């Protein structure tokens, strides 16, 4: 996935159908509905919940996050940078003899190497989060729906985009209504 700063996503023309939004009031109905949407073959859809939900990744068919690789990469760069930095500054560029200590020694280099490993690994984790979540993305068509404000409070939602190849204005709506949704709403951007 390529990262580009998407402060405002590319919106379809004014008044065009963006997608449908279904509201659920329990975790269980949501999970069952999410699995139905996945099985129906949709790809441009999402679930919106106030809390992380166990089993949702499987129900939605989300592939494992690649972020751990970024963390590993960050950590490896940090460790290498720590060692090279200490060797290059104190033993190579300006050999600095103090208290008869060796110019470079692994044991004495461990604290700084360790801290830089942790620092870059953590920065890798957070950078990964920004990249894969597409942050910052300050506006989204969903924010214009009044009921969606409760997605960060006490309600669960499924949104399906009209841009999805499987999307059909009536059938998709029926499917969501049938899946135990409390309410289904069309979204016009």
């Amino acid at each position, binding site marked *: 996935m390529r990262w580009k700063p998407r402060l405002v996503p590319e919106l379809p023309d004014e008044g065009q159908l963006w997608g449908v939004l279904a509201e659920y009031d*329990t*975790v*269980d*109905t949501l999970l069952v509905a999410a699995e139905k949407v996945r099985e129906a*073959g*949709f790809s441009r859809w*999402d*679930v*919106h*919940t*106030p*809390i*992380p*939900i*166990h*089993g*949702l*990744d*499987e129900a939605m068919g*989300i592939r494992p*996050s690649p*972020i*751990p690789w970024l963390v590993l990469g960050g950590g490896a760069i940090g460790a290498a940078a720590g060692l090279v*930095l200490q060797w290059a*500054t*104190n033993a190579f560029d*300006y050999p600095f003899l*103090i*208290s008869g200590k060796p110019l470079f020694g692994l044991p*004495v280099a461990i604290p*700084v190497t360790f*801290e*830089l490993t*942790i*620092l870059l*690994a*953590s*920065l890798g*984790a957070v950078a990964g*989060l*920004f990249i*894969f*979540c597409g942050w*910052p*993305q*300050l506006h*989204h068509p969903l*924010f214009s729906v009044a009921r969606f*404000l409760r997605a*960060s*409070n*006490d309600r669960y939602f499924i949104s399906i985009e009209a841009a999805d190849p*499987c999307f059909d204005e009536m*059938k998709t*709506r*029926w499917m*969501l209504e*049938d*899946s*135990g949704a409390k309410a289904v709403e069309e979204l016009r951007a």
Partner: protein
Amino acid sequence: MATEILDNTAEDPGRRAPLVLGGHTFTTLTETVCEVVERPTPRAWWVAFSLSLALSGLFFALLGYLVVTGIGVWGLNIPTAWAFDITNFVFWVGIGHAGTLISAILFLFRQKWRTAINRFAEGMTIFAVVCALVFPTIHTGRPWFDYWLMPIPNQMKMWPQFRSPLLWDVFAVSTYFTVSLLFWYVGMIPDLATLRDRAKTRLRKVLYGIFSLGWRGSGRQWHHYERVYLLLAALATPLVLSVHSVVSFDFAVSQLPGWHTTIFPPYFVAGAIFGGFAMVLTLLIPIRAWLGLHHIVTARHLENMAKIVLATGMMVGYAYAMELFIAWYSGNPYERFVFINRALGPYAWAYWTMIGCNVLAPQLFWFERGRRNPLALWVVAMLVNVGMWFERFVIIVTSLTRDFLPSSWDYFRPTWVDLLTLAGSFGLFLTLLLLFIRFLPSFAMAEVKSVMPEAGLEHGRHRGHGQYWGEIPHQHDRQFEGGTP
């Protein structure tokens, strides 16, 4: 509000104690926590804030006085080159460690009760580390040269000396600050989104909107988010242990009797967690009463913290005893002298204050009634705060004032600047803390919700990974046609 449970401290092995009381649902929990930020500023907040702001003004005034006059305004001199400044530094860094323990280590151990207090404790960590960082910065004497501590190519063509623990400290504490800040902020994003969605004014909407980065509670975002949270917890855990170990190397790597011991790293880490939990209790007990959050930060939470204070207090007590034993067992006359001098010499008053506050006071927590009485908890926690400050003072000052050569012995007396700078650092800490409580979600709503029965985790039937068989209200046999292309 269904069944009102008032006490969740009972131990019943067959039943999980509820962590949120008062019949809260997601809706009421959001209301309760957001109300702290959304209601008009209470007068009590203004009073507390003005006092802390005045105190932190004093802090910066004294730092300014120090910079323009010179380090001599403090009472330290050779041989006591470190005194209040480094004591305060170690004290404040140590306070921070409880926040990381609660947010990272207890997370890895699946201690669900941490959710009610972790955000607050993480905030406390950040502010304590800010206070801590001021002291070594200023103690260099000429803080405008502090960039020498960083490996920045400069006009002297010289580099910092990486074989000194003081430089390790620069890396350890700045990494600790950065990672704690990231962890705190990442944890706060869903709750900032809640505040954004509830915002009534344009300004709030825009500010919370910017800082919540466009969070939509999306299942795909939660997936990455949870993974990052776990990874940050796993990275912060060894980090927090390393930071206070590195701080202890400042002492242990030197050759001074009383400092040159291998017990220092674990002893410092245990002491940091001990002191940090005491600070969490000191702050949370009044704040919980003030904001009326008894149902979220319950008696059980306080009791659990009291147990950790007792356990880490015993570790610290063990370290004190072991230091004495090793001083005797080593057969080294200088070591022996330092420890006899600590207990019976000119700073005996500080040593026995430390023992009384850190070893004796927490013994109250062996008793249920001690752990369940908020006032008793607060008093003991306050004593531990005092005791932990004195621990660092005793370690630093007794060893420096009486080392190998009696002709260079000294007795350190703090000046008024020393004392008021210490008081002022509390002003800075409390100012930041009050701003945090007023403007940010100081209790982790999304995390607390996820340990409530409504999240579906406590249903009779277990829902593991990938399996779910909860209640389905509208089960239809019909195939869904909506999705076929």
